[in-house]
């Protein structure tokens, strides 16, 4: 696998994996599981950093910081933003990958 293929595989994996992680995060926040939410936000922050998805990373980081403060309601307010950033990212990525196929 060359580097370009690796990048594509990582990005595709990210797009497939994130909806489940957002769902888990939402469940964590609803159940008041602050430790679980912290881990999810942190993992998504790292994953998005790996692919250079800066806007998504920034929102994940906000959620992580809110969980560090123990502020579940603040963390909840950012979940919607996270979904918006994900949708945006998914569209951009799909367009880019489509453009590449001959």
């Amino acid at each position, binding site marked *: 696998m060359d580097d370009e293929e690796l990048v594509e*595989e*990582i990005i595709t994996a990210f797009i497939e994996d994130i909806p489940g992680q957002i769902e888990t995060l939402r469940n964590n926040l609803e159940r008041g599981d602050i430790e679980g939410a912290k881990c999810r936000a*942190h*993992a998504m922050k790292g994953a998005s950093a*790996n692919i250079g998805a800066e806007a998504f990373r920034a929102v994940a980081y906000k959620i992580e910081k809110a969980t560090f403060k123990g502020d579940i309601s603040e963390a909840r307010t950012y979940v919607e933003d996270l979904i918006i950033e994900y949708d945006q990212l998914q569209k951009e990525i799909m367009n880019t990958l489509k453009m590449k196929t001959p």
Partner: protein
Amino acid sequence: MKTLIVEDDFTSRLLLQEILKNYGPTHIAVNGKEAVDAVISALDTNEPYDLICLDIMMPEMNGQEALQRIRKVEEDKGIFSTDGSKIVMTTALDDMKNVRSAYYNLCDGYLTKPIRKANLLKKLRSLELIT
């Protein structure tokens, strides 16, 4: 080079695995507890890991605790940390306080996310794991 990748995030795991599998077998653990178990069974079969990439923040058991336990397991087998597995912590850029604690707990280096192939390979060269 035999590697253990300890990461709770799927894409970070995939990224490390795709790069590292070119240098030898790679095993996966998704939290600190699995990592310690993997290290114990590798030592029991006399095939210890050359490299362990250890995420700091994970559910179940975090990377700091796993690091301490792994060094303790090695010590109990009479392996001094400089002869043990090379342990590289993987972490977010805004997590530098944790990196300092990790050095205190005898890690050999750290990598920040985003993980970049060039940085990873440079780190492996400086640890003399690859040429």
